[in-house]
């Protein structure tokens, strides 16, 4: 989804405030929220990490931006545990003694039908274009690189494709590529000089650079 979480390149957020000698957790409930997520993923196996990230993304944008990091964690954990039937929403509300805002419903997402080739499709130095995709569900291709051309600078091992894993679709693994973009390519006349960005992208997000902006055709189609 083209959601509020996809912040790369946005303006208006003001200064970055650094706290000196910051503790890992500021309040007791923060470590509970962190622990609940670890418990639910690693011990209860109630959901996977891609579902977790997507649940955070599904928070209403106003809630997302006003919540702290661990409030977002807590909201995602509670949302998924309710959706998976591990806990009951009404009981949770009663225990909390007030509203317990959850993330919004997940979209229906169909498998993309791509079968990644057995060998990595791209190699070091290849120029690739990010597909101009706008999926309804979870994706890890940020908007600010879609449609843009960069160069492969590293080929990473195969990892589970998150656009499927977050939606309980057929699990598949693909290489991810570290793709180097010049600031000029991404930000045009707003680019700073001597700046560049590397983004780590699953193979399905990429096309050879000489393709058009692409995206309607699946990679192997």
């Amino acid at each position, binding site marked *: 989804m083209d959601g509020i979480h*996809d*912040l*790369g*390149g*946005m*303006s208006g*957020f003001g*200064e*970055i*405030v*650094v*706290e000196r000698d*910051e503790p*890992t*957790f500021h*309040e*007791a*409930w923060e*470590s*509970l929220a*962190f*622990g*609940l997520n670890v*418990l639910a993923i690693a011990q*209860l196996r109630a959901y996977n990490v891609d579902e977790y*990230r997507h649940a*955070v*993304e599904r928070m209403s944008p106003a809630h997302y931006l006003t919540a702290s990091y661990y409030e977002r964690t*807590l909201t995602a*954990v*509670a949302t998924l545990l309710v959706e998976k039937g*591990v*806990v*009951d929403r009404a009981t*949770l509300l009663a*225990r*909390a*003694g*007030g*509203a*317990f805002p959850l993330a*919004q419903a997940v979209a229906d997402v169909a498998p993309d039908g791509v079968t990644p080739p057995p060998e990595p499709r791209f190699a070091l130095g290849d120029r690739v274009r990010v597909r101009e995709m706008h999926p309804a569900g979870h994706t890890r291709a*940020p908007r*600010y690189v879609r449609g843009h051309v960069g160069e492969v600078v590293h080929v*990473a091992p195969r*990892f589970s494709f*998150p656009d499927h894993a977050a939606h309980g679709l057929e699990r598949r693994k693909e290489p*991810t590529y*570290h793709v*180097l973009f010049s600031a000029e390519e*991404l930000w045009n006349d*707003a680019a*700073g000089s*001597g*700046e*560049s*960005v*590397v983004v*780590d*992208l699953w193979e399905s997000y990429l096309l050879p650079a000489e393709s058009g902006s692409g995206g309607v055709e699946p990679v192997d189609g």
Partner: protein
Amino acid sequence: MAEPDRPAPVARRAFALREELEERGRLEPGQLEAIAQASEEQFDWRNGARVVARAWVDPEYRERLLRDGTAACAELGFAGPQGEYIVVLEARPELHPVIVCTQCSCTAWPVLGLPPDWYKSPAYRARVAREPRRVLREMGLELPESVEIRVWDTTAETRYLVLPLRPPGTEGMSEERLADIVTREAMIGVARVPAPDAGA
């Protein structure tokens, strides 16, 4: 999904979820606190500082670290969740790497620890991909225009660690003392490791 009532305080919501899981037998008392405590101990950016110090004093380790970060960190005992595939980015005098996760706040937990609030803030996530030089300057790191700044966005499963430049004046320092002067900020790339006479 409209909520007529005011949200309960967030702490109250967290405790409500814990109670509910305990009530349903999915959670033992103290289990969450144990997870959090173990995580704080296991996921410590000082581990990364030890990796950096080792690389500064041992050229062969440095080479292994840059070739296979995951294995070289594991050599020192640093591995685990969010550290399954670590790539180490070498800071060079003419090329300065900086790490971000624009879409959430992914970090190499075993060597960088759980990330600080500023790293998780919308301001850092939004701005550093777009105007890194200005962001670093605001955070106190003024780099000459001749230094290329390269931002690494943690969008997939690779977890990055910056190997900072070894500051001048540290030639005779021990590996332990070197580990003490390395900062988390330098391993993210928003700072350089200060020379020891500069107040470290």
